[in-house]
């Protein structure tokens, strides 16, 4: 099961990277988000999986697809100037980062110990547990997050309105 969802996620991400049409790239990203939601289910965390589907695929991606269709920019515009050196340097750096990170993960003895000590599947995460932790330990952060959302809403309206 893990490898299926991991492949859905990674292939969706690769599809987004390579796809010419912006809308199809967005739909590839939706597939990747669904794959991540599947991974969250395998991590005994159905709450996170539900939130992932509702917020990312349901709200954020719909907003992005709305904007793509509103601006009518389905295709990537022609490049003004080719930047071959920058592109190859960034490809090499990203490949080095990915390979280095994977090697580090596989070589780390601490992660190996943690994987063995935590191998037993814990009780599934419940909304009740999340709520207790959120409102008992992180009430201030919760309020700040609410304020941040309000500020973002006001900012988005102010930025898109033609004459305020």
């Amino acid at each position, binding site marked *: 099961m*893990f*490898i299926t969802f991991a492949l859905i*996620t*990674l292939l969706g*991400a*690769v599809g*987004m*990277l390579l796809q010419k049409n912006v809308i199809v790239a*967005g739909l590839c*990203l939706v597939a*990747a988000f669904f794959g*991540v939601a599947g*991974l969250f289910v395998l*991590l005994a965390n159905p709450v*996170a999986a539900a*939130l*992932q589907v509702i917020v*990312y695929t349901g*709200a*954020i991606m719909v*907003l*992005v697809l709305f*904007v793509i269709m*509103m*601006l009518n*920019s389905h295709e990537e*515009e022609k490049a*003004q*100037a080719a930047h071959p050196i920058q592109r190859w340097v*960034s*490809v090499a750096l*990203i490949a080095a*980062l*990915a390979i280095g*990170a*994977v090697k580090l*993960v*596989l070589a780390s003895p601490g*992660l190996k110990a*943690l*994987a063995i000590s*935590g*191998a037993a*599947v*814990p*009780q599934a*995460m419940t909304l009740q547990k999340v709520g207790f*932790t*959120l409102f008992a*330990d992180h009430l201030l*952060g919760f309020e700040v*997050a609410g304020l*941040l*959302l309000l*500020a973002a*809403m006001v900012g*988005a*309206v102010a*930025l898109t309105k*033609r004459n305020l």
Partner: protein
Amino acid sequence: MTGMDAILQGGLQGYLVVAFLLFALGLATVLLRRTLLLQFMGVELMLNAANVALLAFARFRGGDAQAMVFYLFIIAVAACEAAVGLALVIGLFRHRDTTDSDRAAGLKQ
């Protein structure tokens, strides 16, 4: 479970490898594509990679609920980023009639 086996069977290392590869793919999208909307999607993907790593660690530490709280905060920040970022893209499109980041390199028109 060690090495290749852990990756295929879904041990902690497997989830972390997926998270790192997702992050690399998101970064590649931001660096290699020119359309601002696609770069924005790449940023969302990088945030998601962090979520995968966070919740994988939480599961292997016995179902820690603190990670869920941080996941909620990351989602809230991602939603704010989506709203403001898309508003900025729309503003740029109104002023310059483009969504290409190369064409928006200068501050003055």
